[in-house]
């Protein structure tokens, strides 16, 4: 939060920022089949992404399949080496640290995964699963470990007496609580939640979201929260970044991005999300984008969204728009678009002027 320090607005006190990602790039090589596996291309999973996660806050990351949000999360967690760019955690550069140097950092950064069925070893007891972090980092043993594990179980709403049960004896929601307890064990500062509630039923999803909110409040946790459900992301996030094909299209405070989105992709995404309100659904003008997300091996030139964009002009295919503040927006609201959407503008009737018909992009 704001301090008495009269630092210029462009340089927020570094203490407020837990994670800073600068120009992060992650390419995966595509190799040819056969004996000599030549590199024939690059999957440009994350391409020049910069963002910050403030201490004690939640950054929501939204995007469709293949937008690179999970890859970005894995780079931040140090699970995969980055191609270029920099990840700073607590003011320290943690990009491509050696395994040994990374170890103390790992205690501070934990992950919760999407599928509570496959992220827990079915043949190990729950107590052992949650106790693993203590064993790996040698912070507690024997009776002390058991006591701490049971404390964690109680904290996340599991019955501590179920210490010796197997994951199969728990329901989906309870399993996700096991995942949360495991992530919480070493009192991390950052938890990366990769689609933590997507596999859960609505009524259970709300239980887990409430739990995550409570933990954040009690322990001052920061979250990097990835989900494809826009309402869920809105509910948990302080700020939001919208990714498309490895790039950030728009980012900013939750309120700004959701109520006055500037990037046509954000606008389309918000209009596409089904709202559980029939009247709102009937009155809403849904923007139907043509085609699918293109391949990240050979992304479109210029703005990566231009082949599907209802507002695209010739410029969009030639020049990549920088991520910048647009006129009238708050300074933290950034948009990468040559022709940002104005308030009250309808994209339903807009037609692209690139010469390429929308349908042909499906190929």
């Amino acid at each position: 939060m704001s301090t008495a320090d009269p630092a210029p607005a462009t340089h927020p006190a570094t203490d407020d920022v837990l994670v800073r990602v600068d120009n992060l790039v992650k390419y995966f090589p595509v190799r040819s089949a056969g004996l000599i596996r030549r590199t024939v291309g690059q999957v440009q999973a994350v391409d020049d992404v910069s963002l910050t996660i403030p201490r004690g806050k939640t950054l929501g990351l939204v995007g469709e399949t293949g937008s690179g949000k999970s890859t970005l999360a894995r780079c931040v967690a140090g699970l995969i080496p980055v191609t270029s760019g920099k990840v700073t955690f607590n003011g320290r550069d943690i990009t491509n640290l050696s395994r040994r140097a990374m170890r103390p950092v790992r205690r501070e950064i934990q992950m919760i995964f999407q599928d509570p069925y496959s992220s827990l070893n079915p043949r190990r007891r729950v107590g052992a699963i949650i106790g693993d972090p203590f064993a790996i980092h040698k912070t507690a043993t024997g009776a002390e470990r058991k006591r701490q594990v049971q404390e964690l179980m109680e904290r996340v709403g599991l019955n501590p007496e179920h210490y010796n049960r197997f994951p199969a004896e728990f329901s989906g929601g309870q399993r996700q609580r096991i995942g949360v307890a495991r992530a919480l064990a070493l009192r991390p500062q950052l938890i990366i939640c990769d689609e933590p509630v997507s596999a859960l039923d609505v009524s259970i999803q709300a239980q887990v979201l409430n739990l995550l909110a409570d933990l954040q409040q009690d322990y001052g946790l920061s979250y990097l929260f990835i989900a494809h459900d826009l309402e869920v992301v809105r509910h948990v996030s302080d700020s939001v970044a919208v990714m498309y094909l490895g790039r950030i299209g728009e980012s900013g405070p939750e309120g700004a991005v959701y109520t006055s989105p500037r990037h046509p992709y954000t606008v389309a995404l918000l209009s596409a999300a089904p709202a559980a309100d029939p009247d709102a659904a009937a009155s809403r003008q849904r923007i139907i984008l043509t085609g699918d997300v293109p391949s990240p091996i050979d992304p479109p030139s210029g703005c990566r969204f231009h082949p599907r964009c209802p507002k695209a002009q010739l410029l969009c295919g030639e020049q990549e728009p920088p991520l910048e503040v647009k006129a009238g927006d708050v300074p933290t609201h950034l948009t990468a678009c040559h022709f940002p959407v104005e308030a009250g503008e309808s994209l339903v009737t807009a037609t692209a002027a690139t010469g390429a018909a929308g349908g042909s992009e499906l190929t």
Partner: protein
Amino acid sequence: MTLLEVTDLTVSFPTADGVVRAVRGVSFGVEPGRTLGIVGESGSGKTVLTQTLLGLTPGADVSGRAAFDGTDLLGLDDNQMRAVRGARISVIFQDPLTSLHPLYRVGWQIVEMIRAHDKSVSKREATERAVDLLRRVGIPRPEQRVNDYPHQFSGGMRQRAMIAMALSLSPQLIIADEPTTALDATVQAQIIDLLLRLQQDSGTALIMITHDLGVVADIADDVMVMYAGRAAEKAPKRDIFYSPHHPYTKGLLESIPSSTAARSRLRPIPGSPPSLINLPSGCKFHPRCGYVLDRCLTEEPGLRPVSPDGYHSSACWLPLQAAGLSERAEELRAETVREGRGEAAAEVFDAEAAGAEGSVAG
């Protein structure tokens, strides 16, 4: 006239662990040209229900009636069912990758579908129809794409191909089982838009099975909410969303993070759905219900009308006026609970509330 009239359908599966009572006495009707949304969480029986109608649940004990355009679907033998399935009732499944055969060309699979039901159509004619169908569902350059294999299609295109196949014999009823769950938001919007448009053109009836209340709000005319193998509530769409009567429906709606209440605390339903082998006594929702009465512990409520016109019905003992998300409805419910709850019900409620509390307090 009602196209499909299901009466008291009951489906159970004998297993080594006991009898799984998947569907317990469900009745509903579908009119031509209308869409029925069936909503429910995992294990509510929504998928078993529709698969049973199509004879896709071998080994199950089935009773009840399902009159489709005059014939009882449950009484058909395999051959007769084969003539109905695909031709007069077709299905779209959730995962288009596993429901298309990976080794056959997409076009071939549609041709096969057409010719399986009508041998008099020549291969060439059938191929022409396949191309035409692919064009109708918005696949670009269908003349070429008809020769592609499923893996050459994206997820959204595969689902379009599935829809093309479902349409190929102009069925009277399409059953769509979570057709957009595996798709991204923008692609989901495309598919829903397509289904709505096709339905307008052809007047086909549609049963949309989903766990996503947003999809139902978009596409359904009528909604049936299922819980533990039964219909908890049945009503025209607006009634379900704006004046729900059953506490489960209300709980579902309040569990959804909505833009109007951003960052506020969600109100989840405590606990989790019951095991279908070992169902609780009385109303199957009572262990999770905040309005539980003594009566709920012993007697299972049936669907009864809660609106004057009779279109809105709910299986709950709460008074009929206690419908809606308003304060007035809340007062009414609280009042009823005060009057109708004895010690046993209070105990159930306190135990569940304590469980919910455990996830909140340290």
